[in-house]
């Protein structure tokens, strides 16, 4: 006999009281060699920014390992000092978020294929009764992305493209852009987890 689970409810407009952490956006400490930034906007169906959303990220370390008992290969201490694997950033008045991290490694799967480097993302907001989940892949990982089983499960290339972070326009090396569109012609692919 299984216990029935507790339903989700919206995070509401006042999440800033309880959830932002001062160092939330820093998956690695500022100044970490090889650090990258991923930033963008969360946008609704009227093309308006969400000023009250929370973006969370979870990823493998650069060696493709997790310091977590749920990984059947065993927990592995990251070689990047201060690597937390998790990032959390509330959006600002313009709907912007920004995460500072390092690139994740590729990951093995049960059937022998390799998952391309990716970051799992949860978005919470007023008006979202449950989180929505997406993934960030990297535009310069062309070969790895082509072999990724999750990307391969999305038939439409235009939809697939919503999961690819490209270089930030006019940005420096290591600055990636990833917008999250909840609705509209370029609606981001969201996953049923």
């Amino acid at each position, binding site marked *: 006999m299984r216990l029935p689970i507790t339903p989700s409810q*919206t995070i509401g407009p*006042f999440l800033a009281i309880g959830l932002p952490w001062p160092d939330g956006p820093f998956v690695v400490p500022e100044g970490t060699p090889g650090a990258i930034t991923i930033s963008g906007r969360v946008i609704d169906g009227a093309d*308006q920014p969400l000023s009250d959303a929370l973006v969370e990220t979870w990823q493998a370390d650069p060696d493709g390992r997790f310091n977590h008992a749920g990984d059947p*290969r065993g927990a592995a201490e990251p070689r990047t000092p201060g690597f937390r694997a998790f990032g959390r950033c509330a959006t600002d008045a313009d709907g912007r978020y920004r995460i500072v991290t390092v690139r994740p490694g590729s990951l093995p799967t049960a059937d022998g294929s390799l998952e391309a480097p990716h970051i*799992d993302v*949860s978005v919470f907001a007023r008006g*979202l009764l449950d989180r929505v989940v997406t993934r960030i892949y990297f535009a310069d990982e062309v070969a790895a992305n082509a072999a990724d089983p999750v990307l391969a499960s999305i038939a439409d290339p235009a939809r697939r493209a919503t999961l690819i972070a490209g270089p930030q326009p006019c940005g420096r090396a290591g600055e990636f852009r990833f917008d999250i569109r909840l609705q509209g012609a370029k609606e981001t692919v969201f996953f049923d987890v």
Partner: protein
Amino acid sequence: MTADQDETVGARLEITAYQRPAGVHPPLLTPEYRSTQLRAPKQKLVRLPHLLTEVTGPTAGSQPVTALDADLTRRHAGEPLGERIIVTGRVLDSDGRPVPDTLVEIWQANAAGRYAHQVDDHPAPLDPNFDGAGRCMTDSDGRYRFITIKPGAYPWGNHLNAWRPAHIHFSLFGQAFTQRLVTQMYFPGDPLFPQDPIFNSVPDAKARQRMIATFDLDLTEPEWALGYRWDIVLRGREQTVFEER
């Protein structure tokens, strides 16, 4: 019996997926809750297999949690106004296993139904002795415990004369990305339930009841605080035959 268990391949990666509960969570598009109309994705969700990134996840915050973080009544010069309450329970998975050492974060309105947040323009008083945020780690038995004051109901602009039932916002990590949950705890017997589209966004009446805490005289401390019990159940693993020796 599992059909294709290959015990001969030593290097084979066994990833145990999590349960996918159907019909428990609210539909993202719930038109009665107006803000969902421009925010709920319209495309069909793509099924994500539970791979390494999904079966791992954050469990703790970035800063150490102290005992004071779980007592929302002792963080300012004086005591907040309102009905002092104890809110406690266990975080379990759907197999009944406790979820230990996981971060629980809460936030809430004050006793007058006002949030300490600049966007809240409800003309009810702020309380200088209450900020409404708390956090704690579950113990080895999955137990959490907060001391706070009972939040007030508050009006909101969803429709004419819309009021939120009193509630405490809860955020839980669980032990894996798949278990992440943000929800709200309600109080028993609230007359505002029938008119609240957020509470009623959960389609199943029994599931709605699971968001309501129970008043518990045994938890209540004489001459001091009322006790409420609320257990939270996160999804457990899929039923698979497991070879563990």
